[in-house]
């Protein structure tokens, strides 16, 4: 009896799962179709490359954010952390030019500084949240203010610019690539694939989800709760470092206004992608789709000039809500 009844259920799950899973995918496809209809250059190699490459920063960060949110946390500091890391990286590189000269060692040193600063910032957030046990929202809200103001202070209110020659040398890291695929896109893809693997196939991913679903149960199941939680913030910090490594060669500068609102964009991408804000369930590929949806909205608004540009924000807001409605409808149908 159990056998025969089990069969239809399994198929129905297989049938209905796509509906809910497809929510964000459908929204993305709808946007692509809309874009293609509005402008013939939309699907051109150049435009596609532009959109993907500039999605990379938020995208790389959002992958890390997926783990934090899946583990029941949140990080509001990533945008200003990115600005701070970029500032520190630029200052370090400028300071190292006399010693290292301009070349690969300098760039590697800069990258090292960025990754270490990210690591340290992530550890600090993680420490305050996991060990001192302060609300993640407050810790990272505070950190957001701190990094933002430290960056302005480092830049003396202005802009920190990478030395011109160093910049010229470093520039290809954003603009070039291999086989016609720009580096930021490659790095984003790699981060996304590794993230997806980590989320679905490794104990770390499982532990994040169990932590977000019910911390007590995780603790009673010998999951090192503090360490996993800390791990999510450290991972995010390092990924902010990676994003910064791709960001600095683009314009070669950082200021107090770098990365403003990236945190909200990253969180929105994560949620649009189907990860639960309250934790316990996350999917990295969904986040990637969420990031692309957000980038495409901007791109299409620029390409289309439909209405007053003042109303761009309205359209964005409505589309974001609609994308999530689509996803939820899929879910409730199931």
């Amino acid at each position, binding site marked *: 009896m159990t056998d025969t009844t089990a069969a239809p259920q399994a198929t129905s799950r297989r049938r209905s799962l796509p509906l809910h899973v497809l929510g964000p995918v459908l929204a993305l496809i709808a946007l692509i179709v809309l874009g293609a209809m509005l*402008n013939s*250059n*939309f699907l*051109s190699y*150049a*435009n596609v490359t*532009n959109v993907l490459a*500039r999605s990379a920063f938020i995208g790389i960060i959002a992958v890390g954010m997926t783990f934090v949110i899946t583990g029941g946390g949140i990080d509001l500091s990533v945008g200003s952390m990115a600005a701070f890391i970029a500032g520190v990286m630029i200052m370090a590189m400028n300071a190292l030019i006399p010693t290292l000269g301009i070349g690969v060692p300098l760039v590697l040193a800069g990258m090292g500084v960025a990754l270490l600063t990210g690591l340290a910032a992530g550890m600090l957030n993680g420490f305050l949240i996991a060990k001192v046990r302060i609300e993640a929202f407050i810790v990272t809200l505070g950190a957001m203010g701190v990094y933002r103001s430290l960056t*302005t202070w480092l*830049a*003396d*209110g*202005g*802009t920190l*610019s990478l030395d011109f020659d160093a910049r010229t040398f470093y520039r290809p890291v954003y*603009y070039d690539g291999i086989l016609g695929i720009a580096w930021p896109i490659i790095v984003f893809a790699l981060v996304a694939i590794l993230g997806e693997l980590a989320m679905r196939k490794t104990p770390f991913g499982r532990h994040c989800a169990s932590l977000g679903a019910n911390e007590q149960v995780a603790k009673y199941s010998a999951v090192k709760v503090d360490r996993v939680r800390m791990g999510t913030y450290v991972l995010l910090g390092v990924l902010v470092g990676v994003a910064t490594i791709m960001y600095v060669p*683009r*314009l070669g*500068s950082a*200021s*107090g*206004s*770098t990365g*403003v609102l990236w945190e909200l964009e990253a969180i929105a991408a994560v949620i649009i992608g189907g990860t639960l804000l309250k934790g316990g369930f996350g999917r990295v590929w969904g986040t990637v789709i969420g990031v692309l949806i957000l980038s495409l909205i*901007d*791109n299409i608004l*620029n*390409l289309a*000039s439909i209405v007053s*540009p*003042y109303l*761009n924000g309205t359209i964005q807001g409505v589309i974001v809500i609609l994308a999530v409605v689509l996803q939820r409808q899929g879910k409730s149908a199931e």
Partner: protein
Amino acid sequence: QEDTMTIGVAIPSATHGFMGGLNYHAQASIERLEETYPQLDFVLATAGDAGTMVNDIEDMVATRGIDALVVLPFESEPLTGPVQSVKEQGIWVTVVDRGLSVEGIEDLYVAGDNPGFGRVAGEYFAETLSEGDNIVVLRGIPTTLDNERVEAFQAAIEGSGINVLDMQHGNWNRDDAFNVMQDFLSKYEDIDAVWAADDDMAIGALEAISQAGRNEEMWVVGGAGMKQIIKRMMEGDPMLPVNVTYPPAQIATAIELTALGLVSPTPVSGRFIIGSQIITQENAEQFYFPDSPF
């Protein structure tokens, strides 16, 4: 001791290049003046929105007992009432850059010329381009100030037959300007020039243009004379034919004049409008301040 006098300085915070420069000049002139005039005390407050700026001014009056206020209103309308009540308490008021919406409140008015800023740029476009040429415009953060500049620009190119293909907000931000310019380049085959209205945005736009490999096709006019841009002009960058001044140092002028008014009997009231000038490769050197963060 008794005649120690306090000057309050309220300015917007350094959220983009120009304001960064303004902050720099404010701090630099305060340091300079504190050394020159030991009897002067300064309170500097930077605000991220109009409400906070009003808070700052209230605090200066209530707790620091300021004798003079130098204010660059975050926005004109909301600051008018509060500044007026400062004035009514007998405190000297210097208004910088953005006028209040009621005339005659301030003792001293030092300002750049926003319509001039747009007009000078527009005139250059009108002179240099010919009928049927296409341009795109990157606007700042939606504000009255941005509206004034853009309106003056449009008035100046009127009748020249120049085609404004598109205007979008780059929010005085490099990254936003980069994204918008990338999309303009995808959208329009033929662009002859870009008015970026601010050097931060010009930097983003230049980068997007050179990425697309269309350096030869168009030039860019920014504004406010950021040092990197001026340097490139001095080196004769063909993509940067001219720039328009909008000096962040006007705050220093205002603070210095105010200080002078307090410590000496010389009357310094009145209106000082620092007109927007055109910078070209020839005179660029005069506008190059390598020590400024802007």
